[in-house]
């Protein structure tokens, strides 16, 4: 495509940066203004908004981007000039985040992600939707509409309605996140503005008062009942929040395929779009929690090159299918990873001695943990040991059967887990390095583990790490994987 001339940010950018600034400064400023204690240093805080506003205006005026022959050039800054070149080939995702305000005004917060970056390479706030389209077109050299409505030539692979999402909320417990965040927020704001000192109000006092009053009045049996009730109520509340989270965060989830580009859209208030070119998928991760199995569903995510640990959960690790009936898994995988046939994978088991080792490990942990806390637990420690030992036994019995790996010419797959099952599939062409590792315990049994490194594996991701392999087998596997990886060309 012919290079373009300079483009600028959408005029509404000013509005958005001011709004974010205001949120950070005006609220505390207002609180300070209405507080009893005047003239404190907090008052100076309010004056900070002026240079902040000036900086935003300056940034808006000086921010420019243009499309060069094969890279995106972004220039910004007046005193400190900054020019950033991002080759098109490196860009693997142009995502948009749109909250209600964005949608009302027809603009979007654009995040350009490249491989090998911990965070979005460039974050452009804000651009009009036509500008986003142009960017997508030029970068990916494909004509695409925004992923809101199906475009001609695009097939919808998965669409989740609110009932699906509610189910997801029940299965996938995110309630804790919501409550944790809420509590954290309230706590932080209160401490920041000395809410407690000012109003003579303290949560610890409250809790203490509540408990001492109620405890005195209830007979002991009722207390136990109340505790159980409280715990149950808490769990229900968590699930409730989880459903709410799913409904809001994943509202209208749509996975579509256009050409060789996957795209997802989700969100109720804040709409997030992501585009996943097929060839940028590094690993596909399929999870099956106990509740999933009960419902006959799985959860599918992909790791794309360029995602590193970020604040948001799904950065670099995109949902492909938050909840998918198991029967559809094979067909989805065949589309998403062309050439992959799930049923025809020949699963190799891990070494049979794995069970013994797992048992040993679990028993040792079961013995040590209660020991460490014996002082607090006293006789309950024995019960704890018994429970943990039992769990360990079950794990040692069932886990090895479920572990397996498969290595074909084009793919390497690894499945694990007995209750919480996990299956990872990576293309051999995406393998970056292969590590053959042996811990001192491994060496005793002449075993080893093989680890496959790919681009963009998230921090919490359970990598493709195949333990408990016979040393000889492991060596052979590592060597063949490395050879095949070298033979295949890596394309971003």
């Amino acid at each position: 495509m012919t290079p373009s001339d300079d483009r600028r940010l959408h005029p509404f950018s000013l509005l958005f940066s001011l709004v974010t600034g205001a949120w950070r400064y005006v609220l505390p400023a207002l609180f300070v203004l209405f507080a009893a204690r005047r003239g404190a240093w907090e008052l100076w805080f309010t004056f900070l908004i002026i240079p902040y506003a000036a900086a935003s205006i300056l940034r808006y005026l000086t921010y420019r981007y243009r499309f060069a022959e094969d890279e995106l050039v972004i220039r910004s800054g007046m005193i400190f000039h900054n020019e950033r070149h991002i080759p098109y080939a490196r860009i693997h995702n142009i995502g948009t985040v749109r909250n209600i305000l964005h949608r009302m005004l027809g603009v979007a917060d654009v995040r350009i992600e490249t491989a090998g970056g911990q965070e979005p390479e460039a974050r452009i706030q804000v651009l009009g939707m036509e500008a986003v389209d142009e960017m997508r077109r030029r970068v990916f050299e494909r004509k695409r509409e925004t992923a809101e409505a199906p475009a001609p030539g695009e097939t919808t692979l998965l669409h989740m309605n609110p009932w699906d999402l509610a189910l997801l909320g029940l299965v996938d417990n995110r309630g804790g996140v919501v409550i944790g965040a809420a509590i954290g927020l309230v706590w932080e704001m209160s401490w920041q503005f000395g809410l407690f000192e000012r109003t003579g109000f303290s949560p610890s006092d409250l809790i203490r008062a509540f408990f001492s009053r109620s405890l005195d009045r209830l007979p002991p049996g009722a207390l136990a009942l109340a505790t159980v009730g409280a715990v149950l109520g808490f769990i229900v509340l968590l699930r409730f929040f989880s459903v709410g989270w799913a409904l809001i965060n994943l509202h209208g989830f749509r996975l579509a395929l256009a050409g060789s580009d996957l795209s997802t859209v989700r969100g109720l208030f804040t709409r997030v779009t992501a585009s996943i070119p097929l060839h940028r998928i590094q690993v596909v991760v399929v999870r099956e929690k106990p509740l999933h199995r009960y419902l006959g569903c799985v959860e599918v995510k992909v790791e794309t090159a360029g995602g590193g640990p970020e604040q948001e959960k799904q950065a670099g690790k995109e949902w492909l299918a938050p909840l998918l009936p198991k029967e559809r898994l094979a067909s989805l995988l065949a589309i998403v990873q062309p050439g992959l046939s799930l049923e025809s994978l020949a699963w190799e088991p891990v070494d049979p001695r794995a069970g013994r080792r797992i048992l040993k490990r679990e028993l040792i942990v079961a013995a040590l943990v209660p020991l460490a806390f014996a002082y607090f637990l006293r006789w309950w420690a024995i019960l704890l040991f018994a429970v943990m030992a039992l769990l360990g036994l079950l794990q040692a019995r069932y886990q090895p059967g479920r572990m397996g790996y498969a290595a074909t010419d084009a793919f390497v797959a690894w499945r694990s887990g007995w209750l919480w099952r996990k299956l990872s599939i990576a293309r051999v062409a995406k393998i970056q390095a292969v590590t053959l590792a042996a811990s001192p315990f491994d060496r005793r049994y002449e075993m080893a583990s093989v680890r496959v490194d790919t681009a963009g594996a998230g921090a919490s991701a359970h990598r493709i790490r195949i333990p408990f392999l016979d040393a000889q087998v492991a060596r052979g596997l590592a060597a063949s994987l490395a050879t095949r990886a070298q033979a295949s060309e890596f394309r971003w």
Partner: protein
Amino acid sequence: MDPRSIILDRIVGGIVAGAITLGQLIALLIVFAATGMPGWGIGLALAGWVVFSGVLTWFLQIWPALHYRHQAYRLSPERIEIRSGVWWRSVTSVPRSRIQHTDVAQGPLSRHLGLARLLLYTAGTDNAQVELRGLAHETALRIRDHLVAGGPDDAV
């Protein structure tokens, strides 16, 4: 690997040990001054400190030799393999085509001893940086040239 790396590691180890023991001594002295422990308490603490420093220094001196014995690399037309680790051993193979770029680094001490570190950058996450420490400077340069030349170009 270059045997001089043992010397390097020992020197570094010595510095680290020195810093730790010194820090501990200062901390102990502060504690003594602040709480005014009885004589035997001070004696006991000091004895403990001496023992600990002794063990630490000894360990930091023999570790480099151990580590050296277990570290090696092998270069083949298709990849480079790096073996390392004393207790937790591993062999990392990086196919040639996956090496994005390389660094040859030297600190002041390693420069003085003629050593360098070779860093291989890949697109992976765990192995985004594969490090070969304790190479002779010329060897590091040679390996790097060898790796960068030859090998198919990647579409990046």
